[in-house]
């Protein structure tokens, strides 16, 4: 049962040490401190380039039934998780501009926090760009091109404080017709929808999938070079 904490570790690490660590934590009472220690250890294992590049000779005897993948970059999961979280935050912050939620800080134009949705969107776009660059290193050319286009679009469009004709061409038509749909939350989604929202949802989905693949070690590989 306690073995589930070991799933936090990178696949390469688990292929080498999971059985031993499972035996160890079966022998010691697993209170809050060892659990925190395991979580911290898993962060170290993911973030350490040294340990993320354990080669076949470093893995020790192969575990029966295990099929360790090629060396994987430890940053893949963290980058995609961070991008997913930032993307969701950016959407929430953008929607919060139009909807007043009791107990929540207002991020509307009159608030001192007006800049947070813009920063979140730029950060999100930047992270997608980083993922694109990472994909270039992995020589996944089509995925890299899509991520770079997506990241650039989100960054440029997200940097605009108000949705404009660039983001929502139909906003111009709304204004001309005297409609102000963006004053309601559903109208805001409609305004946000055309490019940013769609790009964000697609990018977030890709991040979740990439993160899942990185976690299970199915696909994300490093070229031999």
């Amino acid at each position, binding site marked *: 049962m306690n073995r589930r904490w070991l799933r936090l570790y990178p696949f390469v690490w688990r292929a080498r040490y999971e059985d031993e660590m499972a035996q160890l934590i079966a022998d010691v009472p697993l209170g809050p401190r060892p659990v925190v220690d395991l979580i*911290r250890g898993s962060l170290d294992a993911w973030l350490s380039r040294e340990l993320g590049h354990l080669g076949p000779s470093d893995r020790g005897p192969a575990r029966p039934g295990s099929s360790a993948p090629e060396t994987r970059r430890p940053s893949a999961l963290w980058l995609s998780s961070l991008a997913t979280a930032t993307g969701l935050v950016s959407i929430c912050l953008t929607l919060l501009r139009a909807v007043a939620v009791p107990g929540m800080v207002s991020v509307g134009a009159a608030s001192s926090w007006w800049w947070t949705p813009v920063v979140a969107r730029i950060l999100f776009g930047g992270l997608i760009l980083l993922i694109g660059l990472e994909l270039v290193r992995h020589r996944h050319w089509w995925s890299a091109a899509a991520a770079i286009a997506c990241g650039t679009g989100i960054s440029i469009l997200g940097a605009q404080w108000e949705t404009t004709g660039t983001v929502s061409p139909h906003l111009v038509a709304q204004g001309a017709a005297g409609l102000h749909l963006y004053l309601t939350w559903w109208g805001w989604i409609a305004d946000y929808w055309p490019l940013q929202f769609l790009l964000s949802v697609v990018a977030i989905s890709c991040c979740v999938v990439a993160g899942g693949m990185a976690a299970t070690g199915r696909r994300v590989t490093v070229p031999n070079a």
Partner: protein
Amino acid sequence: MSTNLSGLGRFADSALFVLASLASGPKHGYAIMRDVHREAGVQMGPGTLYGAIARLEKRGWIAALPAEDRRHPYTLTEEGRRVLTEECTQLRRFAESVLLQDAVP
């Protein structure tokens, strides 16, 4: 790659404990943990212990022996023994200098 424990960052102390524990012979993870607790009074968590073991193994300072009941005992390599001796010598020099200062009013 560094040739002493200072390159191990926050794992330097744990790595020294592991090396010291293995100086008396090969041990698996749980035995190392128990040994360190008994000798140094330090309770190492499983994440810290295996973080140190992985780094020491990567540097070639310890080596895994064939598994016994799904646990690999670890043993000191020649290089690991050299690093341990060097670290302990430095620690002794430091401790002696501190004790000497205390002796002088």
